[in-house]
């Protein structure tokens, strides 16, 4: 599983609040970075939950 953050992400940080070990605010680029290219098995459910909780559906999961 991979996850991409769409450019219309509003950078609100809900995903960071939920799972700070997976989603990281990049203060240089103003983007939200994902800690992994390939999401580890143990984190897949958490990433799915973060996508479901995203304010603007900007988290795109690719299986």
């Amino acid at each position, binding site marked *: 599983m991979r996850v991409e953050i769409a*450019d*219309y*992400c*509003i*950078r*609100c*940080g*809900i995903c960071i*609040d*939920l799972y700070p070990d997976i989603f990281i*605010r990049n*203060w240089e680029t*103003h*983007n939200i970075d994902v800690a992994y290219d390939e999401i580890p098995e143990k984190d897949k459910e958490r990433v799915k939950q973060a996508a*479901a*909780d*995203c*304010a*603007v*559906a900007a988290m795109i999961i690719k299986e």
Partner: protein
Amino acid sequence: MKKTIEVDVAIMGSGVAGMGAAYKLAEKGVTNVAIFEKYPAQGGAVSNCPMGLCTTPDTVEAQTKAFEVLSRFANYSCNMGALSKLIKYSSEFPRIFFDELKIGIDGVVKRPPEDYGNQRGYTMGHANGLDVGDIYFITGRGQGHAMALALLRLRLKLEKQGFKFYFRTPIKKIIREPNGGKVTGAIAYDQEGNEIEIKCKALIVASGGMTGNLQLMKDLGVVNTKFEECYTDGGQVLIHFNDSCQDGDGQLAVWEIGGKKTGIVISADPEVPNPWVRIGPNTPWLAANQTKIITEQPYLRVDELGRRFINEEMSSNHSAISTSIVRNNPNMACYMIFDEDTAKHMAVDGVEDGYVYFIFQGAKIDDVRGQMDEMIAKGNKHVCHFDTIHEVCEYMGIDEKGLKKTIAKYNHAKEIGYDEDFKTNPKYIRPVREESGHIYCYRILAGAYDTMGGLAIDENANILDVNNYPIEGLYGGGDMVVGSIFGEPPHNAGGNVYGSMPTGMLAGDSAAAYVKGEA
């Protein structure tokens, strides 16, 4: 080669004001419009407003009462022409957000006009206008912010109509013809720093406040405190998103071409600094646990010299508390102090009047000490609890002699049933006694969503020059202009959805009329 963009209208900023302007331009058929945004996405400061909006219904009774309440708030020295229009524009919210943008409604509090201006907390002029209309609690996606979703949907709708959005592309300069002539364009910079010349018939400035720019706030006297590390960008007491890009670009650009410089204040939200500890993902503006509810209770609060400074019934009136803290107290701070008996009272009886802070109705406050300890364990230096007043004063830096004198008089006011100094209703006075077993203290700073003010507009949202003449082709909306509608802005005078979007809508309507030759 320098890039040039030619449009009928350029908008600086895509927060709720800029988007409100764009909405009105589209409605009037003006679609050759470009929106320039410093941030990577639309939304601005108000995107972190997940819970609700206020709308004054378009009835004679409601419009008249709201106008009266808000005018009185400014001692009738406000920009009444603009005020009247923004109240009217607010009546369009239900159609825009619920019918057109399909935002869900969690609940509605319908308020009869005769009740406007009568709430203990959130009285006149609150940023959300919560006191002068119907309150809609709105539903976002997942744990997200409904206003953010609304503004994304609006952006997608506008893009289909031909509106162009340029993100990470801040406008830095405004081009004005010499000798007080009209505005003809602006200069923006793309992500690589390349200059873009914008040619436009009208420019709408709606770039928000300056809470991302501590140095500018300090230079202008907006922030003046020894706790300035708490005024970081979206971190502790400034409660918009982190990394906001609200740097005062619009104010600086307008001042440079002769725009009038008005007072600037931070908008109001008294906050206990509580870095990165949050109550939940969809409420980043609130500290974890029940701190916010506790600090809105009408109990003793003093400045660092131990002096009372306000009728404590104003404890949940953000405008009153913040204005007092900033104007009267050293270091933009106050200290809420109560004892173990009061902690038990909050646990057993709950909040005063069964109501505090409009989303926490009837809460009971469990384990104040445990909640404080959790914050302290995470490194918070702004809360404490000790057995003695002496220890509290030593830890917080409060003048002990002054505080003890204040407490003696405050406790006496309860005994005699009359508060000679501040006229606080005795039912809210909770004596502070070491004999109760414990003393609690919170440091509360004047926090904010944003800064208010900096620019002045006329009744059509035309930005004024230093002599109060409108600058032709230049319009303004949002936090940077709403404050001036209320004169020298009190903290919390406007802003947010109720103030910012209507001023943006007014700017959009006026710019549309101007470019169509109908002004």
